[in-house]
């Protein structure tokens, strides 16, 4: 077997995970449907006044995105753990951090990216302005990778535990609060007539910061869980 470069490995892992997910499309779709449902529940719960809905739209979409990405987290490693693939991956001579990064990227493409793309439709239900919709999508595109990256640490730590699904939310949700605040804040800034640049810049900074550290930490967490 010829030696893979890091990017070659990254591409390989992403392609493999995407292929596996496409063979079982329902998993991806359930997360998306869950997201749409949670967002649609809010107008039913709080009443249909457009003014109030417009105000709370970004927060509702963000909280729903957070919950939806939590829902799909346990799947990140569990299937590979169950059939032993994960052990083989850890034995591979290549960097485990890059492997984990590949899995994170694949997870984001299957959970975060579809959420960001469908969010404008939901935003229209909440009577958001076009400008706010653009910012919402942009913020989601910057923020959801962070959710996947922080979530990977939680998913790795709770690998193979009883009730891991609930536990992972308990661990990861408090750590995701900054993303929620600045993600929702970006849209609110635009609604208030201000520039969303500072919020988006902070989201981008979180993403870069997480990109540097979380694959390594998640790889360590996997090593702890697989001992």
């Amino acid at each position, binding site marked *: 077997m010829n030696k893979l470069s890091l990017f070659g490995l990254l591409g390989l892992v992403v392609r493999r995970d995407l292929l596996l997910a496409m063979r079982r499309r329902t998993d991806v779709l359930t997360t998306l449907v869950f997201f749409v449902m949670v967002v649609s529940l809010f107008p039913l719960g709080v009443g249909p006044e457009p003014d109030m809905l417009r105000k709370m739209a970004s927060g509702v979409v963000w909280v729903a995105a957070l919950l939806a990405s939590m829902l799909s987290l346990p799947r990140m490693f569990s299937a590979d753990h169950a059939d032993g693939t994960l052990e083989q991956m850890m034995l591979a001579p290549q960097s485990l951090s890059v492997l984990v990064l590949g899995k994170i990227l694949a997870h984001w493409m299957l959970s975060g990216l579809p959420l960001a793309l469908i969010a404008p439709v939901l935003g229209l239900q909440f009577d958001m302005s076009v400008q706010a919709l653009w910012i919402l999508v942009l913020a989601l595109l910057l923020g959801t990778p962070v959710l996947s990256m922080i979530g990977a*640490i939680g998913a790795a*730590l*709770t690998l193979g*535990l*009883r*009730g891991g699904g609930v*536990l992972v939310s*308990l*661990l990861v*949700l*408090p*750590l995701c*609060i*900054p993303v929620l*605040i*600045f993600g929702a*804040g970006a849209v609110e800034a635009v609604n208030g007539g201000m520039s969303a640049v500072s919020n988006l810049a902070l989201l981008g900074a*979180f993403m870069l910061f997480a990109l540097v*550290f979380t694959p390594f*930490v998640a790889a*360590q*967490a996997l090593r*702890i*869980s697989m*001992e």
Partner: protein
Amino acid sequence: MAINWFKYSAPSTFYGLAGKLIPFFAWPAAILFATGLYIGFFVAPTDAVQSEAYRIIFIHVPASILSMFIYLIMAGYAALGLIFNTRLSSMMAQALAPTGALFAFISLWTGALWGKPMWGAWWVWDARLTSELILLFLYLGFIALQASIEDPRRADKAAALLAIVGSVNVPIIYFSVKWWNTLHQGATIKMTGTSMHVAMQQAMFIVLVACWLYVIAVALARVRSIILERERNTQWVNELKEVQS
């Protein structure tokens, strides 16, 4: 003469030492609690702005300080355990977590009691309150992760990693909520001096020291239980007087 600096890093030797140390922390804690609260409730003058209700400060402020401080100590111990693979450090981290969570809870509770007469609301979504609440969540996550893993070594390491990630994230969370919203009053005691009455300062400081001693005493007592639980199959535990009786 060579001193064995690591003698008490073994659970078997630390168990006895911790048992001897507990009274030295527990009794001063009790006495200082009584003195501090007496000064706070009976000696300290009534506040000009907040009248009598301000007196909850003597519990609220020490609890808040310690809830944050304990998290750092806990993460420090957890990191030591993760890096040097010392069992006792991980046990100390595990022993500190419930106390930290307790102080975070007390801080929120007394804050709510203080907020009602001052701000007219039990709870406001203010930066300090929110970050304290998140701190409580982080403690609960640490405890839950530790409790749900059966293998104690894996539990220690996993919880340690979580505590370290949390401690990196705490400043980020703190500043994110700070920029987001704020109502909580700023710190009264600063390095440059304070506007507080002397008796108020004394009471708060005494209760702070008392809480600190209490934390040490309780952590030592709890770490003793953890040592017994984890080492229950070893010979030295079975030879202990309290185990045999």
